[in-house]
């Protein structure tokens, strides 16, 4: 949690080393007052829009409150909501759907992204332009673009089906990416990969570029084969960056909502019902506010835990 000290610690130390030649003219506000004056508005906003609602959610998670019946009596149910979520095989199924989605999309993105970064790092002519073009999908709105993918996935007329049928010979109308149980999860993985491989690539590229040339030069002197150089220099030294990308994509995909909601809405059946979709159904369709608050807290704590690890990884990369 306090690992951010990497850089700020350095700055603080620099400040300590700097002799106090600066005559502190305390005209107007003192430094401490300015510090608080500058930080307080941000903190107030976050308290109002993040912390207060969070505390409210925790409170609600112990009740049977329903937001569509504000006048009904609210009963304290203790840990019953948590208990029913954590023993419900259907919710567990949603978690495993999420897990499978996270696992496959991240695996594919990491392999593809690292390979691309490694190739771009060969610095061929025009690599800057192509890198920028590759980065485009990740900046776009997952919802708006994901929505358009439903058009590409249309069974008869969609471009995706057409290309697949041209490549494999299977008729374009013989499969439905979004409506068939075995295919629907992959439809989402494909869009996610299309969109976020550039993200992994960009971070891997930074990792590869952070490896100083002299290490490779030394390896050349030792006549290490390129294969050996890759496994003993390139990959280990880029690993913290790969970890960073994997962790962040993991957190993002764990709470994935936009794309799934627009592509399949959780269907067919519940084959693509990831945790966020379950939560949305409980909270905004069934209006079980107390129950979904407990669910929200479970997701929340999980993400918070992963965020702790992410910040640790961030600092390891920062110190490079």
């Amino acid at each position, binding site marked *: *949690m*306090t*690992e951010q000290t990497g850089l700020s610690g350095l700055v603080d*130390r620099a400040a*300590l*080393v700097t002799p106090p030649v600066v005559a502190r003219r305390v005209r107007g506000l003192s430094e401490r007052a300015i510090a608080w004056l500058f930080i307080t508005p941000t903190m107030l906003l976050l308290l109002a829009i993040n912390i207060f609602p969070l505390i409210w959610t925790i409170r609600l998670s112990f009740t049977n409150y329903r937001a569509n019946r504000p006048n009904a009596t609210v009963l304290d149910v203790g840990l019953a909501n*948590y208990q029913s979520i*954590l*023993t419900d*095989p259907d919710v*567990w199924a949603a*978690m*495993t759907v*999420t*897990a*499978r989605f*996270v696992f496959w999309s991240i695996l594919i993105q990491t392999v593809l992204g690292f390979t691309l970064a490694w190739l771009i790092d060969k610095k061929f002519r025009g690599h800057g332009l192509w890198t920028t073009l590759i980065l485009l999908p990740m900046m776009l709105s997952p919802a708006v673009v994901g929505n358009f993918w439903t058009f590409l996935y249309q069974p008869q007329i969609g471009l995706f089906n057409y290309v697949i049928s041209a490549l494999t010979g299977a008729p374009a109308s013989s499969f439905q990416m979004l409506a068939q149980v075995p295919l629907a999860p992959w439809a989402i993985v494909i869009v996610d990969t299309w969109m976020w491989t550039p993200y992994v690539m960009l971070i891997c590229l930074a990792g590869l570029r952070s490896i100083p040339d002299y290490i490779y030069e030394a390896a050349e002197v030792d006549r290490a084969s390129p294969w050996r150089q890759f496994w003993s220099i390139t990959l280990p030294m880029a690993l913290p960056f790969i970890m960073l990308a994997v962790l962040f994509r993991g957190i993002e995909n764990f709470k994935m909502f936009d794309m799934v909601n627009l592509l399949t809405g959780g269907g067919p059946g519940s084959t693509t019902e990831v945790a966020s979709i379950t939560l949305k159904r409980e909270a905004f369709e069934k209006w079980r506010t107390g129950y979904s608050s407990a669910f929200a807290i*479970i997701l929340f*704590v*999980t993400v*918070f*835990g*992963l965020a*702790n*690890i992410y910040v*640790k990884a961030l600092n390891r990369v920062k110190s490079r």
Partner: protein
Amino acid sequence: MNGIAQDRPTEHAASRWPRPLRRGPMEAVATVLIAAGVLMLLQPFALVLYTYSFVTTLAGVVMFTIVSKFPD
């Protein structure tokens, strides 16, 4: 130069703190707890593990928050 010299006092102060309870190893334990909790939440094998995943993650998070205050 100065920077290195200034690091010494903190090291000295920390040395009174028992070694296994320093921040580094304790944070590693908390990280493992969080990771275990997340894996238990997401695994498809046993409902029991899923049931206790939240408690595990929560313990990891609480521990992480506390031990990050320990000296290095």
